[in-house]
């Protein structure tokens, strides 16, 4: 018994490599002889879109010919495997004709899990009636996709805005700075501008009054005040206005008529100051000039 088992094992072991090779069946060995079969090098890890090639080399009699009409057509799909290309070549060697058939397949099957597929068995026939069958060749399709496809939307993670940097303090500082800048600008404008572009601000006495406000209460300041007022009168009169011409001035410009006596008084004082060298109290004189300028400005504006 033991001998029988060992003999069976030996036979089995010897037969295994032959089984591992693709068994190619030649129905009429005398007529067609399979010389070589070559399958893809890898049977696992195949993915959709991969191109698999296998070839078959057959020797037939020199006068025999391959029956092309029985060959599978290019583009033929079988269980997700498409015949992409079929190339046939032949050569004569040692009185025999050797055909080489090159099959090129592309995988279009898809699965969520590894699945075993096969390159289909191909049958090659010759005019002499001899046939050769290329058996199917199995391989594992290893999909990269998950097994169950779901819509992407439920799996989306909401994209939140990045948290904002704290800018309140900076904004407050910026706003304060802008406010101060605007305030400073307005003060500078108030101090230095002529305002002549504003309505009712470009009168000669309005101009004089703005300048009077900036004068220091000094001897020079009061002299400047008298000159400014004098200049404003000159501008209104169109020429040098003298103290003796005040009546003619108010006759010419009746809006100032109500202030005739004050204008007379101003000229008397201004003449004493400018030409007589009599200096009144500076602060008081400047106040008088400003008060008169305000009144003249009001007349000038006709308010």
């Amino acid at each position, binding site marked *: 018994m033991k001998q029988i088992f060992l003999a069976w094992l030996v036979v089995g072991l010897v037969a295994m490599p032959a089984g591992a090779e693709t068994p190619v069946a030649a129905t009429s060995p005398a007529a067609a002889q399979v010389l070589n079969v070559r399958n893809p090098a890898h049977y696992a890890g195949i993915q959709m879109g991969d191109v698999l090639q296998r070839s078959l080399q057959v020797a037939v009699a020199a006068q025999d010919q391959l029956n092309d009409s029985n060959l599978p057509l290019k583009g033929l799909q079988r269980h997700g495997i498409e015949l992409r290309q079929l190339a046939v070549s032949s050569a004569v060697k040692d009185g025999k004709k050797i055909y080489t058939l090159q099959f090129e397949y592309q995988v279009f099957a898809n699965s969520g899990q590894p699945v075993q597929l096969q390159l289909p068995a191909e049958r090659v026939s010759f005019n002499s009636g001899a046939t050769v069958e290329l058996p199917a060749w199995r391989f594992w399709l290893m999909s990269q996709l998950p097994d169950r496809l779901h819509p992407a939307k439920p799996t989306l993670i909401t994209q939140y805005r990045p948290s904002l940097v704290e800018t309140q303090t900076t904004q407050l500082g910026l706003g304060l700075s802008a406010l101060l800048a605007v305030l400073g600008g307005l003060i500078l404008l108030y101090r230095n501008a002529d305002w002549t572009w504003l309505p009712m601000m470009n009168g000669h006495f309005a101009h004089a009054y703005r300048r009077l406000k900036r004068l220091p209460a000094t001897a020079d300041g009061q*002299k400047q005040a008298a*000159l400014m007022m*004098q*200049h404003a009168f*000159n501008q209104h009169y*169109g*020429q*040098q206005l*003298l*103290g*003796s011409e005040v009546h003619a001035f108010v006759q010419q410009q009746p809006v100032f008529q109500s202030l005739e006596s004050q204008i007379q008084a101003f000229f008397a004082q201004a*003449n004493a100051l*400018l*030409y*007589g*060298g009599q200096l009144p109290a500076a602060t008081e004189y400047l106040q008088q000039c400003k008060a008169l300028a305000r009144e003249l400005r009001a007349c000038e504006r006709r308010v």
Partner: protein
Amino acid sequence: MTSVSIATQLADWRDHALTLENEVKKVVVGQDKAIRAINIAIFARGHVLLEGGVGVGKTTLLQSIARGLGGAYERIEGTVDLMPNDLIYHTFLGEDGRPKVEEGPLLRAGEQLSVFFFNEINRARPQVHALMLRVMAERHVNAFKKEYRLPHMLVFADRNQVEKNETFEIPSAARDRFMMEIPIEIPEDRELRKALMFDVKFQHAERLTQQVQGGVLAYDQLNAFSDVLQSHIRASDVLEDYALDLWQATQSPAAFGIQLDSVDVNRLIHTGASPRGMGMLLKAARVHAWLMQRDSLYPEDIHAVFHEIIAHRLVLNPMFESRRTQLSRELTNQILASVSVPARAKAA
């Protein structure tokens, strides 16, 4: 001299000056401005050129002034054949039939001469003008181997601006020696004109001038008092700036924006006022300030005498000479109207 005595002196002389004015105004009507100007010239010790038409009262005015001023009054008529020696001497046959030489009108009164009236000066030749210029400037003349001093003499000349035949235009140098050129115009006032026509007292000029109180002023003290007056009246720096602007405006009126309707001012002026003219302007202005009872100059004082002192000093380009009187008056008016206190630089 103390300040009190100076003040008294100023006040007394002012009273005399105003009295003279009032006396003359009694007999010469409608010429108040001219009378005031002559009064100022007397106290500023300046010679006066009167300009006006025929029969407007120039001679009567001068005779009245001369009577009030006191001193001697001499007169000569300008004619085309008048020679300088006619002012110095004249020759005649004496009662004994022998030729005699006597001092002419310029020398006759000697130092008592207070007014020398040269009637129609523009009819005299330039040689006569030259002599007068020298006498007016130096107030002395050499004749008969001696020097005649005329320290109190004021020359009043007149020229007829209407007639141009047989006249010799007074050169600018001669005009500049006259402190003032005073226009004597016919009064505008209708009542005054009526009085001049119908009031018989104005028909007799000699009788009229006799009504003026004589010797109102002590003519021989005027030079000394004038010096006191001139040194007493002050001018501030503001007024000095103003006067300088006025002077500059006589030289470059366009720079002050002065324009005349009928002429281009850039071509009008050949030479502006001279330093002597500006000096006389301030001198006369001080007298005006004194008459107004002030001891400092105001622009009003300059305005009061500006036309009379500056207009005849302006040297116009020859093409405008024929219209000198009108254009120079117009220009001085414009200068006073355009140049103002404060000075332009300070007003800006």
